[in-house]
């Protein structure tokens, strides 16, 4: 049976400007889906999320996957990644004046 795990890394935090989810290690996993759910209606324009990976959890590079962040309450968006090594996070960028209260969850399979 393949191993699977869901991790909640950012919960009920309001993001604006440039924001990041907390670093998460999952070297055991071969694939990941990163979900972002809007817990409240977004304010201002829509943001965008960029998946980032890292060799050490401190220095980050864009993995190449980007996806729009939700704007309405309970809307969900996601990105899929594989072959990411060990450390993962998302970087979120918002237009000036925009903000979003998010639930960021990572879902892994070996």
């Amino acid at each position, binding site marked *: 049976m393949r*191993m699977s795990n869901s*991790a909640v890394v950012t919960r*009920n935090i309001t993001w604006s400007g440039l924001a990041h989810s907390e670093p*998460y*290690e999952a*070297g055991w996993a071969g694939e990941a889906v990163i979900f972002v759910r809007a817990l409240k209606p977004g304010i201002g324009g829509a943001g965008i999320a960029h998946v980032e990976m890292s060799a*050490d959890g*401190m220095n980050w590079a864009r993995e190449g996957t980007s996806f729009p962040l939700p704007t309405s309450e309970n809307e969900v968006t996601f990105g899929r990644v594989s072959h990411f090594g060990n*450390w993962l996070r998302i970087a979120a960028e918002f237009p000036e004046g925009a903000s979003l209260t998010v639930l960021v969850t990572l879902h892994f399979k070996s």
Partner: protein
Amino acid sequence: MPSLSHAQARQPSDAALSRFDPLPRIICLDDFDRGFCGWTQLVGNYEDSLDAMLPGYAQHSSPMLSTLSHWDIGSHGGVDGDYALKIATGPRPGAQNVTIKRLTYRRAGPIRLEAYVTFKPEANALKLSETDVRSFGFLFDLQVGDTTPGERVMPHLRFLNASSGEHVQKWQFKRQSVPIVPIGTENKTISHYHLSPDGWEDLPGGAQRLCYNEIPTKVNWHYICFDFDLSSMQCTGFRCNDRVFDMSGFDSLRLPAMKNLWCMLNLAFFAETDSGKRAFVYIDSVCLSGDF
């Protein structure tokens, strides 16, 4: 009563158990090379809105499986395998995180928690950084059975590594209750942040200098063993590495029994940072055993 004389404990022949001194019944043997083994995030209570969650709990995030990967040496690995369970705080002084396993008990008798653990700060400075982690520790969250008069009892122990940059290095316990906050409007849920910085007391004779090593990416594992009697709801012993502590001055945080928590047997580990760096607590393996 169990004692810290391990002569009565089972002498297991297999390698996974041979580094523990369990009581006769293995309740769980969690080696994180096998996965998360039922350890999860301690989430705070809420009703109707997540905004009701106390700030202490709101900061918690999920544990992860780590190879103790570092920028300068690569993966450190565990005691006997690749993975350890890791909890990470946020990068803010005083930030905390907790991982928990939730069980109930079959018999109110002696139990023993053993684990191999270690702690380190995020290695983002070329410094020893030995005072960046404020504390690591563990707790039980226990309640009597539904036909037994008694209480909810929460024994806490933490190793206060540093405080405001001072390298303190001593064990502390907590028996002072913290405010209970009603959550929501239906009178069904409460919350209390029992890991708040207030109310910790020094364990008498509890100073201990643990191996930290010479740079923040060299890691040594520590053995802990904590004995508790579920019938008397009293701690009966504690050791860390070569030190056996006198627990006669120890007591637990005690609350009135709650209506949904009968026979609860929760165990948790926590981390707290003293600096603006993330604090990491790694757990290689946990053995919970009982005398039944």
